[in-house]
């Protein structure tokens, strides 16, 4: 039995690795479609034919595309992410601190959102059809069907404009105390928590309701078990797998949300770096950021699948 699980998990990891390779190829191909010559664009006014030819050789632009691709992938594996067109700095150096900032935001969001969403989702499933459930479901469906920037806008209106608890925009210049850090991270945190929790509440509720419909729960009900005992003792242990799957899947929505949230609140994370890179068409920077995001996304999706495999004996066949 255990060997079978290991084999399935390894197979799933293999699929993830192949997917990452295809993704890297697509990202590379997409960024090669840029109309015009990179060397000419970089040199601008100084683009004499000799200078362009020199720069092309220096940047290995005359190599066949597949060779360039192989070099890029090898560099990526060894930690050499190339040189930014915009600032002439190694991309790796530009990314490190930004990436840490984003990780801090993502981790804080998870710490707040996961317990909140699980509690609300389980409560909604327990009292299915009640006023609380219907109000929560309506709120969740609305939150899912509007853009992230609308949630950010509402958060600013409520907490900065009406309640005046927080500043509308954060500027992370010098963070010296915990209070200051809290001030900077508060609005992005509230917005992201809203985005993620909505997804997570919906999926958790569905997972618990799925288990509550199982025959053994009906049996427990007929035996005379109370509603809380029904949910906590009988349904939840069996819903743990689907719930873990739901948590991992919902966390993957962090990636989309963080792009909007970092831009709107000026948070110095990697997504803001990437959006700025897109505006200036800084390809090595875009490639590196995209691969990091895709890697994070794949890890979460794969984790969700593996949790589902481990938790559900029927998927092991």
């Amino acid at each position: 039995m255990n060997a079978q699980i290991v084999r399935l998990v390894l197979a799933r990891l293999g699929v993830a690795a192949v997917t990452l390779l295809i993704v890297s190829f697509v990202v590379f191909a997409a960024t090669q479609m840029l109309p015009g010559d990179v060397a000419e664009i970089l040199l601008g006014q100084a683009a004499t034919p000799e200078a362009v030819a020199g720069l092309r050789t220096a940047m290995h632009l005359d190599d066949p595309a597949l060779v360039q691709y192989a070099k890029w992938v090898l560099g990526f594996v060894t930690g050499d992410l190339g040189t930014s067109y915009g600032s002439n700095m190694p991309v790796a150096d530009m990314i490190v601190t930004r990436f840490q900032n984003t990780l801090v935001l993502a981790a804080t969001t998870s710490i707040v959102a996961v317990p909140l969403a699980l509690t609300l989702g389980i409560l909604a499933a327990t009292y299915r059809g009640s006023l609380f459930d219907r109000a929560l479901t309506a709120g969740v469906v609305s939150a899912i069907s509007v853009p992230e920037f609308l949630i950010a806008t509402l958060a600013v209106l409520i907490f900065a404009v009406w309640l005046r608890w927080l500043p509308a925009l954060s500027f992370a210049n010098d963070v010296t105390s915990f209070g200051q850090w809290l001030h900077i991270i508060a609005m992005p945190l509230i917005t992201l928590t809203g985005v993620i929790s909505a997804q997570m509440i919906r999926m958790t509720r569905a997972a618990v309701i799925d288990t509550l419909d199982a025959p053994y729960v009906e049996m427990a009900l007929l035996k005379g078990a109370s509603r809380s005992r029904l949910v906590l003792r009988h349904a939840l242990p069996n819903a743990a797998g689907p719930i873990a799957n739901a948590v991992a899947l919902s966390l993957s929505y962090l990636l989309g949300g963080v792009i909007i949230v970092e831009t709107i609140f000026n948070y110095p994370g990697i997504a803001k770096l990437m959006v700025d890179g897109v505006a200036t068409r800084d390809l090595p920077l875009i490639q590196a950021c995209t691969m990091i995001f895709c890697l994070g996304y794949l890890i979460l999706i794969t984790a969700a699948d593996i949790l589902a495999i481990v938790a559900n004996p029927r998927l092991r066949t």
Partner: protein
Amino acid sequence: MARHKRTFQPLGYSVSFVTLFAVTIIFFWAGVAIFGNLLAPHSPSKIVDVDYFGPMSKAFPFGSDYLGRDVLSRIILGARFTVGISLCSVLLACFSGVVLGMSAAVVGGWYDTILSRFLDALSSIPSKLFGLVMVAAVGSSTPILIVLLAVIYTPGSYRFARALAVNVNAMDYVTVARARGERTFYLITQEILPNITGPVLADLGLRFVFIVLLLSGLSFLGLGVQPPNADWGSIVRENIGGLSFAAPAVLAPCLAIASLTISVNLLIDNLPVKIRDTGE
């Protein structure tokens, strides 16, 4: 469910009032998108208010924007971009997704394996990120945006249509048709397509919502519809400076997007099971 719901049945389906409400709003925005230039009270690019970020007033129902232009007129004209681009992309995405999905199910073998593996890999790039990379590579004129959004949402549509088509493909009547010697084109158009139309249309609606959200997000980042044109996402972006004093210029386009996407979601959630049934 013994609860009595007031319904009426114009098309043979019982229609709830939520559905009716959603359909009304969707038709309203469709009308605004088509007849926008007749409805707008002012020119969307003309500065008509002396004040910027003006409040709601009789002359300017949604206030004025950061330059003193009429927000209502800009939203009315923006509907054309938000609804038009999204509709074109979703039709393109679902057409290619469904055609590829049905052919993969019917042809099977290597064709199916390679196509599925490749499109699954594409769908594991987060959509917003995919959009950013493509905009960086090829720019963001309106035709490019349409194709780009279609490419991003084709894999999802493919996966959905393929799952449905695989089920239908296992039916006896398809085996009979195949035994008769019918070609792939006939199998796809005559045997499979008529039996998956309902769920595919429901999926089209959901994907329309995703595309509206992504397009608005890209425009909000300044990477979607470019000035002087503006969709609803761009209007929010231009006026974001008015957020700290709750200018209606920020809220109104947000509410326009929300009303459209929530209506489509409500409509699909309340579709009769007969249409929505995914067959999975």
